[in-house]
């Protein structure tokens, strides 16, 4: 697919997602065939809409199981969305066939969460990092040698390590290999799916700094998924907060961190242990666990844990309400 050169390019977002929905049918085996009920669906991503402008980093935070990773994978069509549209530079990619999808993926890559599971233990670094070149440009390992060498050097690895296997590297170094593999095709858009959550603090800082440098050098756009608000607050320009498949609040990083509106965002930010504020403040703490995504509560999905729950919350699903600028919140308190 050749993307149309458009003179108005700067205002066309690099990625635009409209009303994206992904449901998983959890019935298995025979019950899937005979059961007619429609009740056993998990809406991992439930009507998500957003845009990412070129060169910006959008951060996605939420608790485990809220659908962050599914959303990230759906954007790249690593998982097929159930409904909704995804546009890459204004072109609909939701229905691309395999051939065109391959070309789309050339400029859209992902960095995976677990550097221990995402590298083939039987392949050398050179084989791992050169694979995208083989798939997309048909280059042999020999032909891709210098490019592999360059990218490894750029992510802070030595070219002498090219023949080593993943187990010979530490967690941080493995994540560097994963980053090299994602960037070797010179992508424009990269989904970073919890790239630092498996790493120790001092190594996490190294990888974060590396990602920021690479973003400048390769003029990348990141979709940065993390459960750690401090990390997202550090790297992102815009932040979206996800709860049970829905975006409950979105805005600039300043909006979200310093002026959170949704009770969930407030609780999430207050729960982060801070080294500088050692004395614990009195604050609204979240009780209970999140409800099962299989049986979400009616109305606002956060109502079961919300400290400011009202009558309407129990029946009416809150609309996305615009506060100011880019700050949106889905909460009855503000409508």
């Amino acid at each position, binding site marked *: 697919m050749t993307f149309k050169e458009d003179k108005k390019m700067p205002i066309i977002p690099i990625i635009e997602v409209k009303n994206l929905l992904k449901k998983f049918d959890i019935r298995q085996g025979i019950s899937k065939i005979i059961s007619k009920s429609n009740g056993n669906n998990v809406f991992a991503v439930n009507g998500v809409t957003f845009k990412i402008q070129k060169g910006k980093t959008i951060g996605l935070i939420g*608790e485990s199981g809220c659908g962050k990773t599914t959303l990230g994978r759906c954007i790249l069509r690593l998982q097929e969305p159930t409904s909704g549209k995804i546009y890459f530079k204004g072109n609909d990619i939701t229905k691309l066939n395999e051939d065109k999808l391959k070309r789309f993926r050339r400029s859209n890559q992902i960095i995976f969460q677990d550097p221990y599971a995402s590298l083939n233990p039987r392949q050398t670094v050179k084989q791992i990092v050169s694979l995208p070149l083989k798939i997309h440009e048909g280059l042999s390992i020999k032909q891709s040698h210098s490019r592999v060498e360059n990218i490894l050097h750029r992510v802070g690895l030595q070219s002498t390590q090219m023949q080593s296997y993943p187990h010979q590297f530490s*967690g941080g170094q493995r994540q560097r290999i994963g980053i090299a593999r994602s960037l070797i095709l010179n992508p424009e858009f990269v989904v970073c799916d919890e790239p630092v959550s498996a790493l120790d*603090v*001092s190594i996490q*800082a190294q990888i*974060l700094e590396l990602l920021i440098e690479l973003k400048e050098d390769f003029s990348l756009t990141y979709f940065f998924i993390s459960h*750690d608000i401090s990390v997202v*607050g550090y790297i992102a320009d815009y932040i979206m907060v996800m709860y049970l498949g829905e975006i409950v609040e979105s805005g600039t990083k300043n909006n979200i961190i310093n002026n959170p509106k949704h009770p969930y965002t407030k609780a999430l930010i207050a729960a982060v242990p*801070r080294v500088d504020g050692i004395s614990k403040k009195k604050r609204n703490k979240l009780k209970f*666990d999140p409800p099962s995504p299989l049986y979400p509560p009616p109305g606002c999905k956060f109502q079961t844990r919300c400290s400011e729950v009202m009558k309407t919350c129990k029946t009416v699903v809150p609309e996305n309400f615009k506060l100011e600028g880019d700050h949106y919140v889905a909460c009855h308190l503000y409508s």
Partner: protein
Amino acid sequence: MEKFQHNQNPILSIKNLRTQFPTRQGLVCAVDGVNLEVNRGESLGVVGESGSGKSVTFLSVMGLIRQPGKIVSGSIIFDGQEIIGLPDADYRQLRGKSIAMTMQDALTALNPALTVGSQIVETILNHDKSFFQSPGSYRRAKEQAIEIMRLVSIPDAHIRFQEYPHQFSGGMRQRIMIATALACRPKLLIADEPTTALDVTIQEQILDLIDGMKKSLGMSVVIISHDIGVVAQNCEKIAIMYAGQVIEIGPSKSVIHKPKHPYTSGLLRSIPNLSKLDQRITPIKGNMPNPINPPGHCRFLERCSLPIESCKSPIKMYHFGNSRSVRCVHNGIGL
């Protein structure tokens, strides 16, 4: 900190502990001369990256170092009694009753084939002599188990008593682990990464729970964590471990605000700060040294920002007033 007058009689005192594991590549000195003290009613936080020896130190205390691993030298005095080399039968009486430990991963630590209730009852029946072969002992132990489940805020404890670990969420499983550990009202609770696999909101609940239990049962607590924020907010004293050694120890507030070891200050500067969004993080360069045949000089030398000639000889612990100690020749000057 008001507890320091009890210094004469700490509940746990580890002196010069060395625990080693022979491997094919060489001898791994996982714990290499650790000195730690936990006073009665005090909470100690042990912070370090993976491989720093924090878990192995406390597995040594619990007598859970498996062959071929071995405590090579040192002494561990618990409640006035030397426990290294204690016969197995005596150790079993101590473990679970006087010292209890919650393991890092609650899912793998609980037996999936037994109900959570029976796992708590097992601890009670094993340790409480008054239950021994008396009629109705199981019923009374069950009542006690349900009570302790209520204590750790598990809703509908009498129903959930019969459920299996997989029916619980991550946070609830951690509560079960804590309930099992607290079943015999131990004098010391060692919590190994109690919140690592949990979301921040749940993490907060668990840390509050441990803190509440500590106060109501009057026990001492050790929290092992890689997250300095978690420990800073919840422990009175903090010990930083690096490559098998304690490199800094002192009251939490003073260590966080005025770190004296370059590693501690580097660690603090590697964490993105939500209160200061624009502040850049500065990663510590490099990786932890190989635990096999560790260098005789300062273990942090290769990564340190202030290396001088005298760092190349073995570094002893320097002690200050205000119960602070640091293993660095700079004594915090120049940081």
